[in-house]
């Protein structure tokens, strides 16, 4: 059973076209939810940590939010350099990280 599900699998946007990526999770005892950015051939790069429902974090054009069952990564007015795969990960009561399959974002100029 998947603990972390991300949607959509792939997303194509025009530059400036805002959208949201979804991460839903089913782990018990969520200790934290993390968003990462992964460029081709590179390791995941940390973006945000969210700990409790209602929490929000922002960084440049990205904003992450958390509810009891899911998290959203909102991208406002994206640029081509935002193109990457965005990974969501959760950590449970046993300090184990579970990763989603990622959303591959492509922003066209």
């Amino acid at each position, binding site marked *: 059973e998947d603990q972390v599900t991300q949607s959509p699998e792939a997303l194509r946007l025009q530059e400036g076209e805002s959208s949201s990526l979804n991460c839903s999770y089913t782990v018990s005892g969520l*200790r*934290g939810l993390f968003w*990462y950015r992964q460029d081709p*051939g590179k*390791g*995941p790069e*940390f973006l945000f*940590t969210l700990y409790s429902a209602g929490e929000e974090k922002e960084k440049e054009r990205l904003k992450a939010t958390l509810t009891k069952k899911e998290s959203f990564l909102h991208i406002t007015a994206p640029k081509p350099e935002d193109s990457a795969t965005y990974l969501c990960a959760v950590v449970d009561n046993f300090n*184990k990280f579970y990763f989603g*399959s990622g959303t591959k974002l492509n922003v066209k100029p």
Partner: protein
Amino acid sequence: EPEVTQTPSHQVTQMGQEVILRCVPISNHLYFYWYRQILGQKVEFLVSFYNNEISEKSEIFDDQFSVERPDGSNFTLKIRSTKLEDSAMYFCASVAESSYNSPLHFGNGTRLTVT
């Protein structure tokens, strides 16, 4: 900014050969991990390591895998007899303290190709 470094960036080996993947975690970090990512698939947990011993391992981490921290800086993953299905990106990660307080910091990975 301190980072996790991995060598080599790409390793090609023949089936049945042994490989050692090397990692230098961030110096003040205490918890170390290996993950792998088969092309186009999700990042999968292999093993976590703390206080010079394995704290948890996944079903993937069978007897052909082993980890070691031979000195104060290196953290290695050994695959004793590689199989074709071991071809993947292998990522090392480290974290400063209890995981839920801190994110994992990843290296850029070693691409292992088994022929």
